[in-house]
């Protein structure tokens, strides 16, 4: 049938343009070449983080190392599937659940467990049902949906720390918000520049949304102390700012879920009506399953529900409803005390290995003769070490040593192993001496 169709098309084309000499199989191609709407496009740049992986994959150097994307690796450099995740998956498989649509807001049970996990079971606002949320496509998806809702609700700007995760700007810009920054990091001293942070926060227009990394700031690994968080909270109150928490490392930073959520919980206790993104990519190792939540704390239960109903209006024309599998895994674990305990141990194990590697890397840098101050590597918390290497040094490290990290000098500590720590230390030392 298709062949017949082609010949009739050719006959009619011949009648119109005398193209009877064009061989049958090239008719489609020829037409496309001459009239293709895509003919004048520019090649878009590679993503600064994910594009790194693409470059790395094309490198054939045997000792190449990638410390780019924030994905955990075990000491053998291999991806790690948490045993509690595997156990949960096995149980789910035996249940032979259906794959029906889960609803625009996703799995209600999953969202409920996740909010308890994030806000704490004893969170008063949660108990009063003033915390309501939806399942989101991990962190990115939640940020994008919230950004779009803020814009719909009259927001024009959002304030993010300088520096911040490489994708934040693109997400919020595409949501229609102008991205501004507040001071955060002092590169000279490799530490939190709290005085400048406070000064900038006080200048932010009332009512603005302010993005805060709940723990394990990406890329710097420098978090405010609890006292500093309290001061940030006061300023937000005075200025009437909307705290927008991005929590991608709960449990993964200190090894303890409650500790890592302490800043968020304190804000909610203090009466802030926050919005929060939770990602389960790193702490549950569910990267590719895109599991997360987006939630708001409302003045009342009704108000929070209204916001959720508006979030659904953003989600439906974007992807209709979220994927089930990863959410089911998280829900299985969080709702089973024994699996939950297993998770705590396994997540803490990941955090511990990373901490060990921080110490090891710092020692090796000293051992290879570097005279630079590398204290920040052990001072910082979470997945990344913000090395302080310049763009040029990073490029040299890629080209000469085939060690790949992002141009801002951010090193994913999860990619450091006892097997490659020496090599990495040597490479860093070589480009920075």
């Amino acid at each position, binding site marked *: 049938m298709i062949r017949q169709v082609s010949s009739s098309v050719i006959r009619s084309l011949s009648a119109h343009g005398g193209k009877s000499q064009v061989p049958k199989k090239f008719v489609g191609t020829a037409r*496309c070449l001459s009239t293709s709407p895509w003919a004048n496009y520019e090649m*878009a740049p590679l993503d600064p983080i994910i594009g790194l992986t693409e470059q790395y994959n094309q490198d054939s150097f045997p000792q190449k190392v990638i410390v780019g994307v924030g994905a955990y690796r075990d000491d053998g450099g291999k991806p790690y599937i948490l045993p509690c995740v595997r156990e949960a998956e096995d149980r789910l498989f035996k249940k032979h659940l259906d794959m029906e649509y889960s609803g625009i807001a996703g799995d209600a049970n999953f969202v409920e467990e996740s909010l308890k996990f994030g806000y704490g079971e004893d969170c008063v606002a949660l108990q009063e049902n003033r915390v309501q949320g939806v399942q989101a496509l991990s962190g990115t998806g939640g940020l994008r949906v919230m950004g779009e809702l803020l814009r719909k609700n009259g927001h024009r700007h959002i304030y993010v720390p300088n520096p911040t995760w490489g994708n934040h700007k693109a997400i919020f810009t595409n949501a229609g918000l102008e991205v501004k920054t507040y001071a955060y990091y002092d590169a000279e001293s490799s530490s939190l520049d709290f005085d400048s942070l406070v000064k900038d926060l006080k200048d932010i227009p009332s009512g603005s949304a302010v993005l805060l990394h709940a723990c394990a700031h990406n890329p710097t690994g420098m978090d405010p102390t609890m006292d500093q968080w309290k001061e940030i909270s006061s300023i937000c109150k005075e200025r009437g700012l909307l705290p927008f928490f991005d929590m991608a490392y709960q449990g993964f930073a200190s090894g303890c879920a409650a500790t890592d959520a302490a800043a968020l919980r304190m804000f909610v206790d203090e009466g802030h009506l926050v919005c929060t993104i939770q990602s389960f990519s790193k702490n549950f190792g569910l990267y590719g399953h895109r599991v997360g939540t987006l939630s708001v704390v409302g003045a009342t239960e009704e108000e929070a529900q209204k916001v959720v109903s508006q979030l659904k209006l953003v989600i439906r024309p974007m992807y209709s409803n979220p994927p089930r599998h990863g959410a089911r895994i998280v829900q299985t674990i969080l709702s089973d005390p024994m699996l939950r305990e297993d998770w705590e141990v396994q997540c803490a194990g990941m955090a511990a290995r990373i901490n060990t590697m921080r110490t090891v890397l710092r020692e090796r840098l000293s051992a290879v003769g570097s005279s630079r101050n590398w204290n920040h590597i052990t001072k910082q918390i979470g997945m990344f070490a913000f090395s302080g290497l310049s763009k040029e040094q990073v490029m040299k490290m890629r080209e000469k040593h085939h060690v790949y990290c992002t141009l801002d000098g951010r090193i994913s500590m999860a990619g450091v192993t006892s097997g490659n720590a020496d090599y990495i230390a040597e490479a860093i030392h070589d480009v920075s001496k």
Partner: protein
Amino acid sequence: MAKATLGLISVFLYGWSVVCGFSLDASTPTKAAASLWQDVPQGPPDAILGIAQAFRACEDPKKVNVCVGAYRTSEGNPWVLPSVRKAEGIMLENNEIKEYLPIEGDAAFVEKALQFAYGKNAPLDRIAGVQTLSGTGACRIGGAFLNAFLPGRTIYIPDPSWGNHKKIFEACGLTVQTYRYYERSQNGLDFEGMLEDIQTAPKGSIMLLHACAHNPTGCDPTPAQWQQIYQSILERDHVAFFDSAYQGFASGDSEQDAGALRAAVDAGLPVLLAQSFAKNFGLYGERCGTLSVVCGTAAQKDLVMSQLKCIIRPMYSSPPRHGSSIVKTVLSDEPLTEQYYEECASMANRIVDMRTKLVEKLHEVGSTHDWSHVTQQIGMFAFTGMSSDMCDQLTEEYSIFLTRDGRISIAGLNDNNLEYVAKAVHAVTDGKSITSN
């Protein structure tokens, strides 16, 4: 005495609050914060999913769900295809990792998916394909791409179309218009109207075409009609954006259901394709699909890929891997693929069977209307011709849940509820028109 005690207690509490450094009003929202969300109105429920919600909440034991387009067995249950379940088992045995997929998704899956749609000999070297969150995600990415790179052009969707199309494309920033499609007075395709609207649309417009099993009407152009549609599209330099959500599910033969798409590519149209595996693989909630752009050369393909990635990354970074792994596993294994084709055909066959039985039953219970369109239509839905009032009556009096445009999901029918539904439909349509709504 009581007053004094209360006084003491409040002094004590105040003192305690000072010592602990918290406010007694700890859980009361800050003033500024309290005003942030207070003017947010309640969002309206989604037309289709809202009805599904209403169905769940309904307590009538006779209730029937013929609303959402999800397949049901003859027992009225969701069905996970055995080949899909088998694939999941294989994935577990292989200890599949859970790493991030690339922004563009699982390349091996995308290859299989595109071959499934475009054919085994598809010119994949010049088709830019990305994994998406099922059909909605594909339409969104495709629409965003068109809005960015063919700015100012209007997208034309059929009247009627799937309820979410308009919202998706408007969210992309596109202007959405309609072309005539269905003639309700004939309960059939308004082909002349369709062709005329395609021919009069401004040059270079985007035409959204349902690849097969048009939703909600179930009414597809014939191959000859498709050819005329392609001619008009070519003459007007339009772009053909196919939405394929029912390949294999419509006729039971996935090669046949892909005929219109493949003929368009052969005819040299600039083609985009939004592909969903929700229905034909039963993967609904796992959100599995692709968006592809047929380019002229491999170099163009690379350019387009790079731009599609720029749309995806700030939206959700990368797609979910479970559903795509399942499809990849099935389509990479010959026996499993064969098993899949049989299972998909069985779904289509049960639906065709139910169409026939519904019309028979309607006549049996006394309806004198011409219901032939119900058996002629193809795919998941029957576009009955009932008015919104009749639909409301069906829901309120008979607890039969359908969308208010008269669309019935045939998959929701079975031998247990067929007579009930037929009687109810007859009751609300008897003596009234089903061709003037």
